[in-house]
C-alpha cells in the first residue's frame, strides 16, 4: 500500500480514527436507546388515551417530542463526525498515493542517472546515428552510386592534396579567367586578385558553383572527344 514495512504496525492516525469511530458508535447506541424510549412513550400515550387519561397521554407525547429533538441533534453530530472520519481516512489514502508517486519518481531519477543522464543518452543516440550514416555512405560509394556532387567533393579533396605537395601556385592556364584558388580546409589561400575571399567552407558559394560548372563542361568535352 505504499508502506514498505514487513511487520504491520498501528499508527497514531489509526488510533485517532479508532477514537472517532468509537465516538460514532456511542452516538449510535445512544440513538438506539432513545428510539426505544420514544416508542415506549408512544405506546404509553395510546394506553392512557384508551383509559381516558388525556393529561398523562399529553405528558407522554411531550416526552417523546423532547427525545426526538435530542435524536435530531445527535443525528447532526453523527453526520459531522462521520464526515470528519471519512476525510481523515481519505487524507490517509492520499498520503499513501503521494508517497507512492514520490517513490516512483525517485526510482525513475535513479534509473536516469545510471543511464548517464540526458546528454549521454543523446550522445549514444547520435553516435549510433553517425555510425549508421557512415556505414551507409560507404556502402553507397562501393555500390558506385556516387552522385555528381560527391564526385566534385572527391575531386576537391584531391586538388587540396595536390596543393599540399606542389608548392607553386597553379598557373592561371588551368582554368578560365577569374579563377580563385582557395581552400578553406587547410587555409592556403591565394587571393591576391580579390579583396576579401570568403573563407567559406565547401558549400553553395558562387565560386564553387562556377568551378563545378566548368569542370562539368570539361568532362563533357572529354567525353565527346
Amino acid at each position, binding site marked *: 500500500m505504499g508502506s514498505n514495512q514487513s511487520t504491520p504496525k*498501528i499508527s497514531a492516525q489509526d488510533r485517532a480514527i479508532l477514537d472517532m469511530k468509537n465516538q460514532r458508535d456511542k452516538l449510535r447506541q445512544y440513538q438506539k436507546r432513545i428510539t426505544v424510549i420514544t416508542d415506549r412513550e408512544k405506546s404509553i400515550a395510546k394506553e392512557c388515551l384508551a383509559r381516558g387519561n388525556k393529561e398523562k397521554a399529553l405528558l407522554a407525547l411531550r416526552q417523546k417530542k423532547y427525545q426526538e429533538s435530542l435524536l435530531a441533534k445527535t443525528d447532526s453530530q453523527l453526520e459531522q463526525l462521520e464526515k470528519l472520519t471519512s476525510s481523515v481516512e481519505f487524507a490517509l489514502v492520499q498520503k499513501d498515493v503521494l508517497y507512492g508517486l514520490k517513490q516512483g519518481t525517485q526510482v525513475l531519477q535513479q534509473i536516469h542517472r545510471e543511464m548517464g543522464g540526458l546528454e549521454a543518452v543523446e550522445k549514444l543516440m547520435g553516435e549510433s546515428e553517425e555510425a549508421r550514416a557512415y556505414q551507409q555512405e560507404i556502402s553507397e560509394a562501393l555500390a558506385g552510386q556516387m552522385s555528381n556532387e560527391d564526385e566534385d567533393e572527391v575531386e576537391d579533396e584531391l586538388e587540396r592534396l595536390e596543393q599540399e605537395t606542389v608548392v607553386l601556385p597553379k598557373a592561371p592556364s588551368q582554368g578560365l579567367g577569374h579563377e580563385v584558388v582557395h581552400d578553406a580546409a587547410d587555409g592556403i589561400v591565394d587571393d591576391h586578385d580579390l579583396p576579401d575571399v570568403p573563407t567559406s567552407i565547401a558549400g553553395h558559394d558562387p565560386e564553387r558553383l562556377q568551378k563545378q560548372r566548368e569542370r562539368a563542361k570539361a568532362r563533357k568535352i572529354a567525353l565527346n572527344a
Partner: protein
Amino acid sequence: MATASSSLTTSSMFTFPPTYSFPPFFSPQPNAQTRSAQLSKWSSLVQSYCRHHRIFKLLLSDALESPLFHNSKLMRRLSAHDAKAVVDYMTSKEGGNRAEWIGPATEKASAWIWWRRPEEWAGVLEAWVDGTGQKGTVLTLYELVEGEATENQEFHGMDMEVLRKSLGTLVKKGKAQVFGGEGQEGVKFF
C-alpha cells in the same frame, strides 16, 4: 438484543429432524456402535439448533428445559448426565471439536457451541472485509457485529467473546491487529 446469553426462545420455527421424534433418541444406547451413531446425531442437532437461534453459548440448565433437550410432545427428555455426555462428545476430536466447556472442568455448566469454529468465523469476517474494500481501514469491534453495514451478514449480532476469539486467530497469523481500550477495541485487517 442480548446475544451473550443463551436465548432459547424460538424466534422463527426450527424444523427438528425426524430423529427428534424417535423416542430412543433420548435414552443412552447400550450398544457401542449405536451409541456413537446417536452421539453424532445429537451433535448435528445441537449445532443446527444453535445456528438457527444464533446461540453461541449454551447454558446447560436452560437447555435441559428447552425444546432442544426436552421433547414435550413425546414426553422424552435428555438427562443432565446424558446432556453433559453429548457436549463432552462434541468437545472431543472425534466429535469434531464443535464445543468448548467454559469455566472449570468440574462445573460443566455452560459451553461454547462452535456451529462455526472461530477459525471459520475468521474466514467469513476476512472475506467480508476484503469484499467491501475495507482492508487497511480501522473498524471498531462494535460496528462489526452491531453496525448497519453488517446487518445481513451471518456474523451480525455475534457474541463479542466469540468475535474476539476469531479475530485472535487472525492476529496470530498476522492478518489483523486488535488495539484500543477495553470495550472500545478496534481492528485493522491487513
